[in-house]
């Protein structure tokens, strides 16, 4: 006990070769991880550049404000001067997509937040609740094209809405509902229990507590979740294809009458890509750029909200 078990008096040897070897391995691993991260970023950049290059020269103001045309020369800005009709564009589909998303947002907001509130704040911990939660998890994994079939059978056929804006919006609502519910639940769960206790402690009822304390706290998270889900919905092609979105519309649908036909950006892009003239690939790419811009804007808003309300500053 009087002599130290491991130390020699000459000082302490800190540089162990074993550690150095491990550090080299660690550097290698870090390189690997960094490279993997770059793969995703490079793919994103390649994709964006590819689309933008294809669309270059075809994306004009007129493209955003005119209805589509079957004749590819109508999209070429150099021909705008001498057309029997007007330039070709994406206008009705842009408006269609926006209306579609607005309706979807309204339905999703009520259903999604309502369901999340039930599950987080009201639901007792019993079999039914667990079943509902498991069911939601499962629905989140159902392929979107199956939702398309559902929308076709239930809304278009059974409920007789036809291939309408409302049918499309309801189908997209069901599609994103599971994700919105789960994310809203997470936001609600992130509200510290001490907030609820403080409210109950002052004699508030459950509903008062939820409305005045829990929801305001959870709103940024809920909004982020909804916007991100909507930005997924706006790009979905398969379900609205199944529901039967119009391939060509010359006027935007009317929001006041959501039972009419509609076209949407992904649908229009898909149609352009199928047309014979090779130049339509450029038109489709221009459409994609518009769609991606809308989508990135929505993402940016979501990120802004997330950061602006991030409790960590």
């Amino acid at each position, binding site marked *: 006990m009087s002599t130290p078990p491991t130390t020699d008096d000459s000082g302490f040897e800190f540089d162990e070769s074993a550690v150095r070897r491990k550090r080299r*391995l660690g550097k290698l691993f870090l390189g690997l*991880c960094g490279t993997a*991260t770059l*793969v995703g970023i490079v*793919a994103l950049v390649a994709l964006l550049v590819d689309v933008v290059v294809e669309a270059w020269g075809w994306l004009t103001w007129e493209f955003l404000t005119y209805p589509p045309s079957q004749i590819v020369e109508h999209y070429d800005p150099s021909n705008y001067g001498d057309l029997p009709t007007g330039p070709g564009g994406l206008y009705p589909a842009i408006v269609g997509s926006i209306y579609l998303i607005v309706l979807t947002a309204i339905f999703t907001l009520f259903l999604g937040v309502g369901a999340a509130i039930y599950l987080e704040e009201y639901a007792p911990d019993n079999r039914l609740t667990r079943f509902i939660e498991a069911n939601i998890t*499962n629905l989140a994994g159902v392929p979107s094209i199956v939702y398309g*079939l559902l929308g076709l059978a239930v809304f278009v056929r059974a409920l007789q809405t036809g291939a309408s804006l409302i049918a499309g919006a309801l189908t997209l609502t069901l599609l994103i509902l599971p994700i919105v519910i789960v994310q809203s639940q997470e936001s609600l769960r992130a509200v510290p229990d001490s907030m609820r206790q403080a409210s109950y402690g002052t004699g508030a009822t459950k509903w008062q507590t939820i409305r005045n304390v829990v929801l305001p706290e959870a709103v940024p998270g809920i909004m982020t979740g909804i916007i991100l889900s909507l930005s997924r919905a706006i790009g979905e092609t398969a379900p609205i294809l199944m529901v039967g979105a119009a391939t060509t519309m010359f006027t935007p649908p009317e929001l006041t009458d959501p039972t009419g036909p509609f076209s949407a950006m992904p649908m229009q892009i898909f149609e352009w890509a199928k047309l014979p003239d090779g130049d339509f690939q450029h038109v489709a790419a221009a459409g994609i750029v518009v769609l991606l811009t809308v989508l990135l804007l929505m993402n940016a808003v979501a990120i802004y909200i997330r950061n602006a309300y991030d409790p960590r500053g």
Partner: protein
Amino acid sequence: MSSEPIDLSRSGNDVGTIGDRVARYVFFACAFVTVATTVAIIAVLVEGAIDFFSAVSIVEYLTGTNWSPRAADDPSFGVLPLVWGTLMITVGAALIAVPVGTLTAIYLSEYASPRVRSVVKPVLEILAGIPTIVYGFFAISFITPILQGLGGRVPLLPEPGTFNAAAAAIVVGIMIIPMVSSISEDAMSSVPDSLRNAAYGLGATKFEVSTQVVLPASLSGIVAAYILAVSRAIGETMAVALAAGALPQLTRNPFEEIQTMTAYMVEIGTGDASVGSIGYQSLFAIGLTLFVMTFLMNIFSMWVRSRYREEYQ
């Protein structure tokens, strides 16, 4: 204050309490929409599939190796080529997304500064939000030409066709990278620092902490991310419909054309099959098969999560 009797009863005029009860039912209804959705999906799919299976034996459907349901004189209804196509895409996509996504998650969670993480994570998440139809074009206009350029020049790499499983699998893989990386990163970040400190305190290097402590401790979350990403790949529609082709065949060569279940559904859904024909009904049989496959994946995922739930708080 104490002499007068106090009233603690539920008085009828207490608006709060009534609103409370009403709110409860409304929110329950919202949550129940999700159950109704599942019931409706199953009902729609089963109803259509019953018609189909009254004409086609289930055994032939599940074991047949040839899928040509619309051939007039001698149709065959073996779903295996479609399932095979789906599996090729799924496995290929997973081969890309799992290593890349996991390494990315490790980088973001363990190495990147909060600043880098707060930029890179949402940027990568954009990949998951890009409409799948865009990935389809990207595959055709960018990935396939690269593969064709490599084909013949690189040894062992056969010449890929215009439509091939590989290009589709690559874009689907890119698309699901963020599902793997973000969810895994969440799981890794939720590993408490106390575990990292414990390992550092024992003289572990960062590499060892990341791979031997953080990774195993977050394994259930990571596996759940894999499963989620894989079910997304199974259900992926537009990208494969555009890039993988439309030839249902059992081939081992990923550079050949194939067809997935979803792509077949798009084909029927947009085509001319008359409602009620066996070809149209096959849509529901395939839809049901797809639903069952993703359902099983989800059950598996839930099982993994509950079985290997992280027990630290």
